[in-house]
């Protein structure tokens, strides 16, 4: 009798041990399903439909309404030039990603060598690091507000500062938001400030983890700080650099909040027209504007779907290159 109940409680405990983790995980899995998995599946589906403002309500009432057609038209538009604006968007996106990426990956390298190695005073070094983090930490809309002020030709400081260092007035644009090469330069700089701190954080942690003996030995042998940077630090930063480049490629491809906020708020009128006129319509913003200012939800999803596929492929590649352990490592870095 007693042994039977023992077996019973043992079995119960075993069952409880199996179920308990899932009870703990259930809320998390539900939320992840709602915010990540369902939307990804839905984006795939919507990309193959002609969902727009016309059949949207019917679709919400019934996901399988005959008013929504399954079609490949969206992809024909994207890949076979039926949407003439796509090639322009692609050009701007390449310009955007490549330029901001080089700030984030390479400029940040020199930045962190300067801050973490050349400057020996801990207080100054910390002060500069925090200053570089300001654009990232500050709420996005405030960043947009500050830039809108800074570039204002009458009230702002940008044109005045440039004139102070000797840039002739004729070379300055009337409007940094709208005049074309200038608006694209602004787009790169604004996002570069936010991204530079990413590289800085990753590299600084890597530089601090280089054994001091290695550097001291070189210094004793008469190497200058520049030689140490070139021959010891940079070669050791190969992996962190690859990490920054691959991680940032994906986030830059998908990022458009700052462009939307700065051009949308400052341009007056709708963000879509302004972004087109200013030549800052990047791929993800194009998808957003197709959906929420032209209400072509199906087509917009197809444009997003391209990014979803690119994202999944890139994430797969990260796992292959870096492995699970290395990907987790950046979560444990101290500034």
């Amino acid at each position, binding site marked *: 009798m007693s042994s039977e109940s023992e077996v019973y409680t043992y079995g119960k405990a075993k069952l409880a041990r199996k179920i308990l983790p899932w009870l703990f*995980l259930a809320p998390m899995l539900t939320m992840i399903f709602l915010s990540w998995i369902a939307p990804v599946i839905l984006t795939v589906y*919507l990309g193959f439909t002609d969902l727009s403002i016309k059949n949207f309500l019917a679709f919400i009432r019934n996901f399988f309404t005959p008013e929504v057609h399954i079609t490949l038209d969206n992809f024909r538009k994207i890949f076979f030039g039926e949407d003439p604006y796509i090639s322009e968007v692609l050009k701007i996106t390449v310009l955007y990603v490549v330029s901001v990426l080089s700030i984030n990956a390479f400029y940040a390298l020199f930045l962190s060598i300067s801050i973490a190695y050349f400057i020996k005073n801990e207080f100054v070094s910390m002060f500069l690091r925090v200053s570089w983090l300001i654009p990232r930490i500050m*709420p996005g809309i405030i960043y947009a507000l500050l830039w809108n002020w800074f570039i204002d030709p009458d*009230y702002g400081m940008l044109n005045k500062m440039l004139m102070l260092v000797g840039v002739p007035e004729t070379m300055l644009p009337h409007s940094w938001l709208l005049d074309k090469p200038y608006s694209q330069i602004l787009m790169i700089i604004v996002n570069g400030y936010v991204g530079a701190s990413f590289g800085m954080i990753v590299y600084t942690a890597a530089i601090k983890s280089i054994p001091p003996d290695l550097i001291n030995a070189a210094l004793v042998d008469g190497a200058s700080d520049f030689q140490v940077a070139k021959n010891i630090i940079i070669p050791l930063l190969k992996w962190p650099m690859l990490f920054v480049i691959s991680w940032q490629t994906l986030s830059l491809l998908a990022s458009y909040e700052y462009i939307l906020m700065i051009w949308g708020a400052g341009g007056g009128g709708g963000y879509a027209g302004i972004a087109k006129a200013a030549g800052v319509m990047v791929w993800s913003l194009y998808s957003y504007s197709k959906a929420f200012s032209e209400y072509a939800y199906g087509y917009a999803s197809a444009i997003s779907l391209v990014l979803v596929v690119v994202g999944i492929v890139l994430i797969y590649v990260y796992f292959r290159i870096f492995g699970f352990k290395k990907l987790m490592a950046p979560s444990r870095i101290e500034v």
Partner: protein
Amino acid sequence: MARKKVVKYSRSRALLWTVAKYLAVVLIAVIPLIPIWTMVLWLFMQSFSSKVIMGIVPAGLTLNNWRFLWAPLKMGLKEYPNIWPITFNTLALALGVSGLVVFVSVLGGYALSRMEFKGRTPLMEFIIALHAFPSIILLIALFVILNKLGLYGKGFMTLVGIMLIKAGLEIPMATWIIKGFFDAIPWDIEWAALVDGCSRWRAWRSVILPQVLPGIGAISIFSFLSGWSEFILVFTYVKNEAYYTLPVLIYHMIGEYKFIDWGLLSALGLFFTIPTLIFFSTSQKLLLRIYVGGIKR
């Protein structure tokens, strides 16, 4: 004699290197910060001044820029919604996101850190993959889901829907961070409690939880701030002005008030930044650690 010469030569060379080094530091790390410092200084100076000279030198102290706190804002015929209900919306969104994120991710993080179950490693990989995946491109599908749930155009309920979505987007990262805090607690402490006859739940509540309080503090502040400054979800899904949050109000006001009243905009901006300033001045170390761990781009 010859030796002295060598020393002298290497000394002047070292001096040259030092000069070059600091020149590089100034060019690379200091000069590009001038615009950022200027902007931040301007925000503070402008908000209390009727005029600023060269962007940062205040002239004429005034509180007129802060009139939105006690008087309705009018622009021609258009009247902007009162600031306090909008602040309430923002606060509700931020607190809701923060509460949900903490509750869900503490449970999930504990299970991932401490429990053995099938599929633990794949689940952790999946969470890291989600962290890398840019959620912002899912906005259209989330719009459809919001509509399907009947939460679109429903006033405050729309904000509740946004709260759910935002919390869901923050949860993978928060879970990961809190898992790190759980990992740092030695098994022995929990073990001791269990041996002394605590139930697992009891051990969790009275032994483990107090140890991860800093972690909980960190993710609650972090998710509060991210809900507080959430822009794009509210901008896209809320069309009724009464349910705007502060970032969306500021967005619309920049377009109307630039050229006319930078003082008002800066005061409004500073008002909105107060929580960020408070949290960063009180728990800077903790937050920097999270910002560093939780960086997305």
